């Protein structure tokens, strides 16, 4: 049976009208009428200001909104049928909207955007969250310019965050990504990012879309795909990440959808991440087996600092829209007790918080400075050492978090080896399923 197309006939008709585009900005939505208008207007302002000569299009992949979301996006179009005296644009700007088939899911939305970019032969594409109300026009420049200039294939953001924002990303997804793939991509699961048409096509051709990872957490897979494919990566500072109203969500679901994608990616990329780590991995298996009777314990650090300076997890607000199947753009709030229970991490002691916040802010300030010096974007450092170099890794599996700093420091070198040990059986199990 032929595979169902992600593009409806009506949407295809709109794409025909757009024709070829230099720049595409995708906005995945589902009932975002409250914020999407402002976001799309800002995207438009950014395109007009920074890319006035380029053929640009805003593509809204909608999960079936029941509010006015698609209309608000389409209303930002600039065409000759409705001339506005306050908009000075060289050319037509299409803002098109597609309701993709099936249940709302960010992965499906991303696939719709990728397919659109492929058909429109867009050379630089960005995805922007409809909830990013702090968006400024220069986000468009910062995300797209490195790609459009042909210097990079994948640009992820750096945000100024609230200290309790994005903990799962900062403390689990980032360090794991870094550990396995050797790239310091601070936001591997970003709500804003940009990619080249080449990377988009590469990812579109991956065997992911029939799997859960092709529906949720797909952005992580894209990040890993970019790393694994040897594409050129950059990070760009976008300013403050909005602190939205958080809603409670099921932790297990959140973890499965977020971290699940990360784990799912390990199998197809086994050769890559195991290349440097095979001996250690085997060693790690041994250790894991020896400790198999003990609960799995995790120490989280943050922001690439040395493990001994990150001995706590501060909160559990997961900053990532659209990880929930039916509310793709929703934020998930994971109760502190839930997360710590799952990860077996003792709650922080209050006295430690001030210290950690201070460090974190210093780190972000430094990023801002670097960003300014480098025109807003920078290339993430490739790890000079093997991917599982313990010195560079901020998370360690197998150590208890309740221990003192000293103990962490001692445990760190072996931690990565054990990390490999944890994951390999899972991969093998999947491959035999």
């Amino acid at each position: 049976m032929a595979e169902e197309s992600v593009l409806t006939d009506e949407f295809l008709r709109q794409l025909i009208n757009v024709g070829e585009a230099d720049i595409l900005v995708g906005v995945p939505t589902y009932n975002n009428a409250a914020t999407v208008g402002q976001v799309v207007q800002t995207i438009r302002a950014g395109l007009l200001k920074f890319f006035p000569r380029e053929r640009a299009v805003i593509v809204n992949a909608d999960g079936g909104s029941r509010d006015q979301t698609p209309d608000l996006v389409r209303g930002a179009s600039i065409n000759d049928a409705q001339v506005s005296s306050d908009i000075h644009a060289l050319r037509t700007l299409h803002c098109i909207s597609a309701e993709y088939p099936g249940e709302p899911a960010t992965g499906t939305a991303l696939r719709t955007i990728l397919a659109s970019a492929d058909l429109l032969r867009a050379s630089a594409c960005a995805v922007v969250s409809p909830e990013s109300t702090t968006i400024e026009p220069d986000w468009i420049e910062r995300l797209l310019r490195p790609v459009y200039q042909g210097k990079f294939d994948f640009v992820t953001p750096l945000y100024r965050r609230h200290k309790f924002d994005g903990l799962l990303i900062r403390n689990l997804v980032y360090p794991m990504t870094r550990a396995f793939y050797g790239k310091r991509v601070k936001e591997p699961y970003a709500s804003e990012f940009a990619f080249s048409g080449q990377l988009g096509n590469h990812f579109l051709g991956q065997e992911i879309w029939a799997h859960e990872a092709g529906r949720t957490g797909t952005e992580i897979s894209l990040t890993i795909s970019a790393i694994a494919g040897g594409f050129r990566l950059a990070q760009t500072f976008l300013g403050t990440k909005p602190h939205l109203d958080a809603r409670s969500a099921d932790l297990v679901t959140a973890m499965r959808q977020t971290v699940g994608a990360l784990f799912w990616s390990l199998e197809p990329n086994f050769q890559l991440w195991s290349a440097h780590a095979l001996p250690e991995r085997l060693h790690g298996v041994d250790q894991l087996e020896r400790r198999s009777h003990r609960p799995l314990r995790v120490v989280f650090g943050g922001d690439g600092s040395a493990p001994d300076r990150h001995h706590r997890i501060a909160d559990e607000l997961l900053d990532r829209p659209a990880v929930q199947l039916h509310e793709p753009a929703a934020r998930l709030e994971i109760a502190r007790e839930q997360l710590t229970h799952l990860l077996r991490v003792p709650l922080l002691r209050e006295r430690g918080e001030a210290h950690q916040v201070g460090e974190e802010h210093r780190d972000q300030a430094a990023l801002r400075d670097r960003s300014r010096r480098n025109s807003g974007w920078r290339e993430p450092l490739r790890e000079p050492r093997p991917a599982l170099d313990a010195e560079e890794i901020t998370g360690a599996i197998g150590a208890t978090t309740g221990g003192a700093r000293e103990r962490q420091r001692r445990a760190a070198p072996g931690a990565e080896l054990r990390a490999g040990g944890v994951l390999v059986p899972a991969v093998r199990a999947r491959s035999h399923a």
Partner: protein
Amino acid sequence: MALLQDALWYKDAVIYQVHVRTFFDTNADGIGDFRGLAQKLDYLQELGVNALWLMPFFPSPLRDDGYDIADYTSVHPNYGNLDDFKLFLQAAHERGIRVIVEMVLNHTSDQHPWFQESRSSRDNPRRGWYVWSDTDTRYQGVRIIFVDTELSNWAWDPVSKSYYWHRFFSHQPDLNYDNPAVREEMWKVMKFWLELGVDGFRLDAVPYLVEREATSCENLPETHAVLKELRVNLDKYFPGKMLLAEANQWPADLRPYFADGDEFHMAFHFPLMPRMFMGLKLEDRKPITEILKQTPQIPAPCQWCLFLRNHDELTLEMVSTMERDYMYDQYAGDKHMRINVGIRRRLAPLLDNDRRRIELMNGMLLSLPGTPIIYYGDEIGMGDNIYLGDRNGVRTPMQWDGGWNGGFSTADPESLYSPLMLNPVYGYQAVNVQSQKRFDHSLLSWMKRIVKVRKSTPVFGRGSIEFLYPANHRILAYVRQLEKESILVVNNLSSTAQAVELDLRRFKGNILIEMFGRNIFPRVGDLPYLLTLGPYQFYWFRLRKI
């Protein structure tokens, strides 16, 4: 073929712009002349044009290519004499070709006897024929037109020790139209040529006739009054003659030049031209439709004059800064291509000598509302020489054949008024009339065909226009309509093949007949009408209900 007697002849005209100097030299002095122009009238008749616009041919020091006139009622000896002109005019009329003469009202040469008298003494009777001042502080804030050569609109006259006003070059003093004697004299000049039989005037630089303090000294009501006075005389004594305004202004500012149909018959639509080039490069109809939307309705007897290129630079005064930068980058990468606020290039080089784009642009020129003007040489795709000074690069000799001097003159090549185009792409050996006449698919042959199709119906010259706005922005589509006749024009501005769905429901039941091949296309129904167009392709369809 005699001239048809129709007061609105200019609406159906296809005008050919030519400088006598550039066309054909019969006395081997290296300069084209009226006898030569008369000899080439058969060529112009074959091309299908039915009006000629002659650039200034009057006695002049030629410091501004003849726009600095030193005698309004004679012919520059380089081009022949008045008898030669009369013979030419008669020959043109015999072929059904009308002649429009350039008339520079705003200023004269500083070599003109009027100015020489005026400057000779403050008491001279002609002192008041020009705008004199003891200071150069009057009319502060008035823009300088030639910003790259002039520092002020005032120039010091050491003879009469006072300043005179000039909006163009300092050697072109402005006439004083507050003086009734000047108005009367200029009407006499026009009358002189009208009595010889010319069919109309292209009036140069009309916005600047009158000066007033605390104004821009452009488009003033007093200027309109002067022009209306000329029009009254024209209609009274020479009905059926035409006035064409050269006013490089925004459409809204141009509209008063039509007044209530009692000022100018026609005016150039300056802002449209750069936007046609812009739309083509952007592959987007927006610049074109936007400017035409801003174009006001004009009285029924009036008409816009459209052009792609002319003897001047492709002016970018009537575009925004962003658009100007874009145009410079896209069409004038080499600094030599730029002059004043514009681009001094011919049509073919501007379009990379791409035949499809040349055809598309001519297709739009001949189908948008207005009377089209073809600049000499563009019908064969002549090139330009950007290394010649001023705008002389687009005023090189007409290329008739691949022989001596391109068939333009038998003089020594070194004695020609301008070097010929010599390069292998645009040179006279590659691009010339003789070679293109031999082939049915040459640009010249194609131009003849499209002019013929244009002239096969009055719809293009006199009909209304209604734009269709298909979602595909690379398609510029419009319906031209006159009474019961309708023509659908569909242009693909893109370099790639396009599909477009047109909403033609109100023409339901009509069949489309392609006007060049007369092939029948499917009948219009309830569904959107689907067309596919190749790169830069365009269609002209006659809508017929049979």
